[in-house]
Every structure is written in structure tokens, then in C-alpha cells.
């Protein structure tokens, strides 16, 4: 089974993140950059499917040059090779353009299965798997907390607010996963060493046959007009419980008309 895992490099969600002042894009320089956490679960799932069914695992990333760092990190977990879509014209791309580029790259690789995280910690948009599936005309099984592969038949448990749904499709398909699906492995020392030598190919827009006018700022279907910092919340009243903390809490709730 040929598996592509989508990996996105994102600014670390554990520190303060910014947008760039000049063009409202995500500041991908000043915050430390990490692999989108949910994608590690997708990598792990891909490796587990590979262990059981054979085949190869290919990491696919669209992002600026420094995303190679995250690609190597992803490879150190065990995937076989990587494709990095990198082109200056991609800066400022909207979700529609991004999905088109990723779909084109996936189309060239021709996998049976595309795995990805259910959402990224920077955009949190959750739309990529369905958008890519729409371009490719393949099934999207999204929000999986469990994936079963039997031949070409895929079954997931899709996590919902009420519980879960059991959804099936045949390959080729896009499957997105939540962090409930597995426990990602840590890269071994051997994995880290070998990741440096694994094949990493780059693709430009020209390689994918996409007109630069359709992506980036020029081709964007939506645009940020402006951004500003949200005023920080002010701390209010704090009491130390000396036997009546619960009553004081209810006093406050009553004053605010919650009880």
C-alpha cells in the first residue's frame, strides 16, 4: 500500500504567536516551528498500516524552505521518503489554493491512502481533507479515532459530538485522524541518523503544472484586511479559601445572576 502523510510545519502553540505586520500572514520565523502535533498521529498511523500491509510511506509537505527541518523530523519517525512543495509564489495562499496544490502533488504520487491530522494548530480550519478529496474525486474519511484496513476496504470510527459514526470507503481515500487514534512513537537514534539520508524531493509549481497566478496572494479567494492584538483579559477578584470559599463563589455567581 502506498501511503502519503500530509505534514505541516506550524508555529509552536506553546508560546505567543504572531501575524506579520506587513501582509497579515502567519509569522513562521519568530516562533519556534514544530510539526503540527496532530500530524504525528497521522505518521504513526501510516507506519502501523505499513507494518501490517507493507508498502511505502511518503511525507508530503507544502511550506517554505525551512519546513525541511520538520520533514526530516517526520522522516526520523520512520517514513521512507518525502516530497516538499516549495515555491515563493505560494506565500499568502488561501485554503482553496493550498488544497489544489496538495491535490496536484498527491495526484503525481498516486497513493492508495492519504493520511493527515484532523486539523492544524495554526489555522484550525479542518477543511483540508475534504477539499483535497473534492479535487481528487476520492473518498474522505475524516475525524478518525480508529482506522481499520482490510485489502482495499477502509473503515473508521469518526468522532462526533454525540459519540461516533462508523464510516467505510474503498481506497484511494483521504483519512484524517484525531490524537485519540494512537500514541506516536519517539524517533530512535537510528531513525534520526537515517532520516538525514532518506530521499527528499522538492516540487515547484511548474513541476505540478499549476499557474502561479492561481495561488499565493494573487490567486487568494479570501484575504485578511487587518489584524490587531486582542486586549488581554484582566484578572478579577481572588480569595483564599478559609472555610467559606464555596459560599463566596456562589455569592459571586448570584451577583452575576448565574444562580
Amino acid at each position: 500500500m502506498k501511503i502519503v502523510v500530509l505534514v505541516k510545519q506550524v508555529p509552536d502553540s506553546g508560546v505567543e504567536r504572531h501575524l506579520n505586520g506587513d501582509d497579515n500572514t502567519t509569522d513562521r520565523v519568530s516562533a519556534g516551528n514544530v510539526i503540527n502535533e496532530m500530524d504525528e498521529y497521522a505518521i504513526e498511523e501510516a507506519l502501523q498500516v505499513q507494518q501490517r500491509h507493507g508498502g511505502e510511506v511518503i511525507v508530503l509537505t507544502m511550506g517554505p524552505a525551512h519546513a525541511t527541518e520538520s520533514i526530516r523530523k517526520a522522516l526520523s519517525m520512520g517514513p521512507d521518503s518525502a516530497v516538499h512543495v516549495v515555491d515563493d509564489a505560494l506565500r499568502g495562499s488561501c485554503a482553496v489554493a493550498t488544497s489544489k496544490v496538495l491535490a496536484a502533488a498527491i495526484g503525481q504520487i498516486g497513493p492508495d491512502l492519504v493520511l493527515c491530522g484532523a486539523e492544524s494548530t495554526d489555522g484550525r480550519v479542518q477543511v483540508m481533507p475534504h477539499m483535497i478529496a473534492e479535487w481528487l474525486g476520492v473518498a474522505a474519511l475524516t475525524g478518525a479515532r480508529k482506522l481499520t484496513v482490510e485489502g482495499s476496504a477502509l473503515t473508521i470510527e469518526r468522532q462526533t459530538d454525540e459519540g461516533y459514526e462508523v464510516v467505510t470507503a474503498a481506497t484511494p481515500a483521504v483519512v484524517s485522524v484525531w490524537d485519540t487514534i494512537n500514541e506516536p512513537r519517539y524517533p530512535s537514534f537510528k531513525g534520526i541518523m537515517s532520516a538525514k539520508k532518506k530521499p527528499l524531493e522538492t516540487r515547484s509549481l511548474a513541476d505540478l503544472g499549476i499557474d502561479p497566478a492561481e495561488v499565493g496572494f494573487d490567486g487568494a479567494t479570501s484575504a485578511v484586511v487587518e489584524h490587531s492584538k486582542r486586549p488581554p483579559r484582566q484578572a478579577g477578584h481572588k480569595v483564599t479559601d478559609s472555610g467559606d470559599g464555596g459560599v463566596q463563589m456562589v455569592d459571586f455567581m448570584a451577583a452575576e445572576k448565574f444562580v
Partner: protein
Amino acid sequence: MAEVLVVVEATQAFGVKKVTLELLTAARELGEPSAVVLGGPGAAAAMTDKLAEYGARKIYAAEAEEINGYLVAPKAAVLAKLVQSVAPAAVLLASSQEGKEIAGRLAVKLGNGLLTDVVDLDASGVATQVVFADSIIVKSKVSKGIPLVTVRPNAVTPVPAPATPIREELTVELSEADKLAKVVDRVAEQKGARPELTEASIVVAGGRGVGDADSFKLVEELADLLGAAVGASRAAVDSGFYPHQFQVGQTGKTVSPQLYIALGISGAIQHLAGMQTSKTIITVNKDEEAPIFGLTDFGVVGDLFKVVPQAIEEIRRRKG
């Protein structure tokens, strides 16, 4: 005035979701709201009264077993055809997993821009979003096509505006590509009749400090007394205290209730990402240095196993 399409979300247990009423309220600022019901046979009839009460001038009913039988794609297909035929001023959906997924497919089908997690949309189509752990306010616009927007629950106060909607049937014609992901079973796991986490006006959340799964009963007890939803930090979820669908934060749900009560939660930046737009925050934590106190309106430094039972007793006493 041009039509504004509002895609209706409903649950088996509670019918039309509150967020849909919020969308109808927001849609009235932009044009004439038309509710779009995408569901099984008979779905729209059960919802008509509620949709009428909140100002739907029209109800488009796309009813077929196939709509629920396959994941997302059929809904997007029906909606795309409708958008092409009525040329609405905007399309509004809930910023839920499914709402966003439908919107994503629609954006690709129509080559239309898409804005998600919107908290405000003005008449000129400028949308407000809060990003990066809700620390930055962003104003954006769809620059290609009509505003196709998913709106966060609890961002708008739903206001009734009774109307008498006209019902219009939509034919459901699906291609093979719409029927690739088959839903073979739906399993309900949520216990009790608590409001949904993202829609609730009060959320009582527990963290690692709650200690174990059994002690979460205390969190539930306070929640039920207040008619609240229950949330959990990731540490609580990862430790197996509470199911994942109730996780609040960066990798869980984003909530924006009137009142958020944080019990035994330290306030890591990834937790704050999911709750810091709450109107009022109450915290109980035994560590007075816990970062969550920095955004708390009323905080009790103390043991939650003493403070919470006392609060529960006090609320009961006042309720009489």
C-alpha cells in the same frame, strides 16, 4: 433583498441546534434568511416551527436517505446546486466539524473563498475571527465569490423574529463521487441531557486536579445543578478521566459561554486557546500561582474537593 442561505444543524435529541438560530439572527442583518435543511425524509417538517420563529422566510428541504447515508459530500453537492441557482448574498454554516467540512467542499466546487470560525460578520462582508489561542483579532473578506462563512457557536445572541416561511423542495441528485464514504452506523455515547459543549451558556470544566474519573462526578453534579455542559482539560482526557469529545482547548473544542468554571486546571496556553473568550471565568485551584488566575474574574485558591461540594450545597440551599 437578496437571500442568505443558512445551513441548518440539528440533533436527534434536541432538534434544531442553537447555533442555527444564531445564524438565522446574523443572516437577517445581511438579507433575507433562507434555511436549508439537509436530512432524511421528514426532517424539515419537524424543524419548521423553530426556523419560522427565528425569521426563516424560506425553507429549502432536501430530504433523502442518501443525505445521511454518506459523509458530508451529498450535502455539499445539494448546496452547490442551490447556490448556483439562487445566487445568494451569503452562505452561513455552523463552525462545527461538519459545517466546516461542507463549506470546504463547497468552496472547491464553486471556486469560492471560505472563512471559518467567524465571530462577527458585517453587512459589507467583513468577517471577524480570533486566532492563535484567541490572542489576535483578524478581519477578513472573501475576495472571490460570495461570503461563505462558518460562524462559531455562542458568537451571536439568538433573537426571535417570527416569519411565515415558504417551503421549497430540492431534488437530491447525487453522483457516484458523492457516495464514496458510506456511514454504516451512528453510535450515541453522550450521557444524560446536558447541553452541547460548544452551545452551552455555562461550562464546568475539570482538569488533572480532579484526580480520577470517579471524581468527575463532582464536576458533573455542579454542571447539572447549573444546567451546564461538562468540559475537560487535555491532561484530564489523556489520563482517562473524561472522554475526548469534551476536551476544551487548542486540540479540542473552542467554547465561548457566559460562564466558564475551571476546576483543577492550571491554565496552559493550549487550554486557554479554547476558552478565553468566555464572558465570565471562575476558577478553583489550590495553587495561587496557577496561570489561569490571570484571566479569572472570580478565583478561589483552595481545594476543589472542599470548595465545590460547599458551593453545590449552597446553590441547593438558595434554590430552596
